[in-house]
């Protein structure tokens, strides 16, 4: 994985960061290590936050026996899972079954290559950073489908098909929502986007934020869109047949993706590493945790949507709104390029409210019973 992400960074980065001591190689080595440590620590942290936070929201305590405040719980989980027996079902497609977790897990880490932890503190300041994110993020869907196919289990297959369907449809509103941000920032480099956020884009692009948040949740299968592992329907969805190390990779992937999406949301809409007083990386981590906390919160509260409703939500609700959002943003930038952003904030909020009201009234999502 280390090799993977670094190779990618070599292949794609066009400019060498000049002001780093020791030149390019040190830089990528340092950042690969940082990324892996950061991502894995944050994943552990997220698992802890989710289990503790969810526990408290459910009027109980959550893990508190392993280590102080249960902080070592994720470590114990990881250690235990890694050393469990690894079972490959007799009828599974062995190669696909083996490869699937790797394919699914690697992209989740690779996303961090372009996420800035501070001003310019990133592995590769790609000019097309956000495009890279979008491209890489959808690769894990292939891993999931491989898992579903390779297990030769009907539950896995259903889960994987749902996963593919949701990723394919949600990619579009997500990309359109990003396009709004890119228009405002005038750059595709994540660092430039952060630099452009004198006021966080969540205020300038409220609708975009909402769409991206919903789309992002759907893409990484966070509740209420966790259809592909839907506990109450498909037992464990696509990873039903996985155990041991490979299951651990799926388990970590789930949270690594959550970290990645939270990081992207924090970067695109919440001003990334920018913030007063505290050091930039801390601001960044705090924002990531904040976004993740909202995800935990919704997961605790909301029921799951149905597959056709999920599709309809993407195509009938998010997609048109994203298009309109993009057009409105484009008009705003073309017509009033020098307008004060503070004036646009209430206008955009009003537009968001209006659009949501309109679409809520007009469209019915999903369809009902089918004659058989």
């Amino acid at each position, binding site marked *: 994985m280390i090799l993977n992400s670094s190779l990618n960074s070599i292949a794609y980065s066009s400019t060498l960061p000049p002001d780093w001591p020791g030149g390019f190689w040190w830089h990528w080595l340092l950042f690969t290590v940082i990324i892996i440590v950061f991502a894995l620590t944050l994943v552990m942290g997220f698992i802890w936050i989710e289990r503790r936070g969810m526990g408290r929201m459910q009027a109980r305590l959550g893990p508190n026996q392993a280590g102080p405040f249960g902080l070592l719980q994720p470590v114990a989980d990881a250690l235990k899972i890694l050393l469990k027996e690894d079972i490959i079902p007799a009828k599974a497609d062995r190669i696909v079954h083996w490869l699937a977790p790797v394919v699914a897990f690697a992209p989740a880490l690779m996303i961090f290559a372009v996420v800035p932890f501070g001003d310019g503190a990133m592995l590769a300041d790609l000019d097309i950073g956000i495009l890279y994110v979008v491209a890489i993020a959808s690769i894990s869907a292939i891993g999931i489908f491989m898992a579903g196919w390779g297990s030769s289990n009907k539950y896995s297959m259903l889960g994987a098909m749902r996963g593919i369907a949701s990723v394919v449809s949600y990619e579009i509103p997500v990309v359109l929502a990003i396009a709004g941000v890119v228009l405002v920032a005038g750059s595709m480099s994540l660092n430039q986007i952060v630099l452009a956020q004198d006021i966080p884009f969540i205020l300038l692009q409220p609708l975009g934020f909402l769409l991206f948040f919903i789309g992002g949740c759907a893409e990484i299968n966070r509740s*209420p869109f966790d259809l592909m592992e839907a506990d109450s329907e*498909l037992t464990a969805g696509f990873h039903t047949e996985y155990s041991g190390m490979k299951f651990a990779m799926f388990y970590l992937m789930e949270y690594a993706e959550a970290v990645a999406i939270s990081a992207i949301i924090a970067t695109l809409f919440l001003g990334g590493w920018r913030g007063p007083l505290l050091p930039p990386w801390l601001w960044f981590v705090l924002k990531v945790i904040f976004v993740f906390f909202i995800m935990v919160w919704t997961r605790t509260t*909301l*029921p*799951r949507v*149905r597959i056709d409703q999920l599709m309809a939500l993407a195509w009938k609700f998010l997609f048109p709104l994203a298009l309109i959002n993009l057009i409105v943003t484009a008009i705003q930038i073309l017509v009033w390029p020098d307008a004060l952003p503070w004036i646009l904030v209430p206008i955009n909020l009003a537009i968001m409210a209006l659009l949501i009201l309109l679409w809520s009234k007009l469209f019915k999502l999903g369809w009902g019973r089918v004659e058989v």
Partner: protein
Amino acid sequence: MRDTRYARIMVLKTEPFILNIGPVHPSTHGVFRMRTTLDGEVVVDVEPVFGYLHRGIEKLAEERTYTGVIPLTDRLDYVASMSNNLAYCLAVEKLAGISVPERAEYLRVILAELQRIASHLIAVGAFLNDCGAFFTPFLYMFREREKIVDLFEMVSGQRLLYNYMRIGGFNQDVPDEFLPALDKLLAQMPRFIEEYERLLKENEILLARAKGVGILPKEVAINISASGPVLRASGVKWDIRKKDPYSIYDRFDFDIPTGEVGDCYDRYRVRVEEMRQSLRIINQARRQLPAGEVKSEVPHLVRPPAGEAYAHIEAPKGELGFHLVSDNSIAPYRCHIRAPSLLNLTALRDMAIGWKVADLIIIFGSIDIVMGEIDR
């Protein structure tokens, strides 16, 4: 009505496949198996397969004394043991012509209604859990149930299988601290029911998932002998507490909540409403509760005259009936149990065909099944 979008999928000649949901599955509420034929995500056919918990209670009851059967009835619908005890005791009392002291009647009503609330809390929680709300409503409901279970534990000494009612009353009177605790519970409960309703009642996703899903028309509901909330959600105002009052239910004032169309959402709403009505009944019974004995003079080994009797009550799941046949010995000659869950389950196939797998799960959840009662 043929949906055009679906018709086009059919042109592709997809092949239906069989998916065995269960016997061990997170949302089958025990060990239940649905042999489902799926076309993609759409349920084409579903055949309930059960018996994985068949313990032969009806046979075992023939080998035990009349009192010894009470622990067996606990294990029928183990979420609502008090109601089962009540139904069985009523049947034996009817068979043997035993009367019950006034205080015991009132306590029976209080406990049976508390049990209804506890059972409905689980039913609603499990239904919402099946909808995919990640354990939160379930745990909230369980916390509320825990309060009621505390009271049951206080009176009977067990948390789940109470074995508290006896033929002719109770084995011992409720302890002194029971009534103050009950008052506290009655004061708090409405507030909490309100809060949990706020959690998901108006939730758009729940509405989308449950409204209009799994409709059970009135006529079908009657034809398949559905009972309890399933029947009432379909709009049939049929509650044995009102229509054929047993014990002392004719002395209380309460409503029968009914649904309009009979979909999953109606069944959920009817259960929540019934909890409120149960609280009303308990309040009245609490105020009228007389002092006195809790058990009438009953011989140690009950020996009813030869004959047969059918007694039924409105258990949380529906009409629970005991058909007892006596041959004037100390054990029942035959003890047939009319299990509401079993008959309500007949509706599953009608309701589920044509819906998605996810809907099948919530339809199944909305019937509120306890396997102990189905398989017996």
